[in-house]
């Protein structure tokens, strides 16, 4: 006698992503920084921004803080940031 059993797993739902166009140079561009809300996250992204400004001549940065580290950035916050900056540093973890 054989048994037939069912696979208990699933797969992520497939979605199509379009990669943002990469700038050819960072000179004069404004950088967006997303602080995920965890301790020192703001410090870390600011450090990254300082290095990029020193090395590549960014024109400045705008920092936003997500309300929760474990939730995606709210859409209105993302859209507002996108209107003001040319590129974004979005992902940090611990």
């Amino acid at each position, binding site marked *: *006698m*054989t*048994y*037939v*059993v*069912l*696979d*208990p*797993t*699933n797969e*992520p*739902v*497939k*979605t199509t992503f379009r990669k943002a166009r990469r700038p050819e140079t960072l000179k004069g561009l404004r950088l967006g920084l997303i602080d995920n*809300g965890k301790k020192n996250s703001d410090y870390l992204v600011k450090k990254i921004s300082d290095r990029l400004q020193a090395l590549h001549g960014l024109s400045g940065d705008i920092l936003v803080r997500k*309300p*929760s*580290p*474990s*939730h*995606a950035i709210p859409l209105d916050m993302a859209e507002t940031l996108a209107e003001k900056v040319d590129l974004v540093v979005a992902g940090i973890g*611990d």
Partner: protein
Amino acid sequence: MGPALLSHKIEVENIDQVVETFYQKGWTDGLPVVPPTEEKVLAFLGAAGLVPDDILGAIPERNRVFTAEKVAINAVMAGCLPEYFPIVVAAVRGISRPEFGLHGVCASTAGSGIMMVVNGPVANACGLNNGQNLMGPGNRANATIGRALRLVLYNLAGREFDRSTLGHPGKYTYCVSENETGLWNPLHVMRGFKKETNAVTLFAAEGPNQVQNHVALKPENILNTMADRMRALGSFNMGGDCECAVIICPEHYETLNKDGWTKERVRDYLYENACRPLADLKRGGLNESPIEPEDEERMVRAVSSPDHILLIMAGGGAGRFSACMPGWFSRHMSKAVTEPIGATCTGGT
């Protein structure tokens, strides 16, 4: 003959091979599983009035969806009976609500478990234990309903995301019900449901911190011991702003109730007294700024509202052991949720 199931089918020689195959594929929590046959999965779906592709929830940060069929497969594997399935369904719906913050709860290095408290007539109808050895082994409903939720997280939410530093045994199963025979309002009533409604409350929590007090005969003194445990520096209740579950055992309940203490009054007292001076947090290393003289008087509470204490009465009739379960991280990231259990479930509405 039920509705067509969509899952991939695996043919095996015997039950031993099912168990070993599931181990090899990484589909278990480390314990053997009950083979999820088509017949059993259909019986579970029927018990909850669901069709296979009903969507019970999701974890959007991971693009993962929980269909009724897949949840039923995992509930069968956990050892549930069909009549337990509506509770599992409600639990999956509950943890999928945005305010529960499931992605963080089951990814965080903090390693919280998901505590489930089942209230209403369904708890007794399903044989859920609210008494002796409340959180220990030996009762099928408690063991398998909680286990089903963990298998759902492992097999459907992506076990590779679980980054717990330590985890805790409640991550195998963490399901209890409340002793509703006393005069206190059950948890689901405190959270806005009618007493005859069946509901499950879900809470991301540390393991249980047992609190013994065999001496105190004054309500305040029982609760002072509890408050002391709730304000431990190493929990997120002091380091963050989260909720805390509290289980009062029947002997402690009798003392409190005899002196006229309601659940509301107990929560208010714990809210007021589960606190410590800011200076303690600085001395204990949770805050590294210099201690100012006024820090000895500035109190930091374990919870920011009495409503953030999830209080139940449960446990064996003998022994003066209660417990608290500190929460995970912050209410900004995860709040306890209470989800009604579907009308098709046995034992109530």
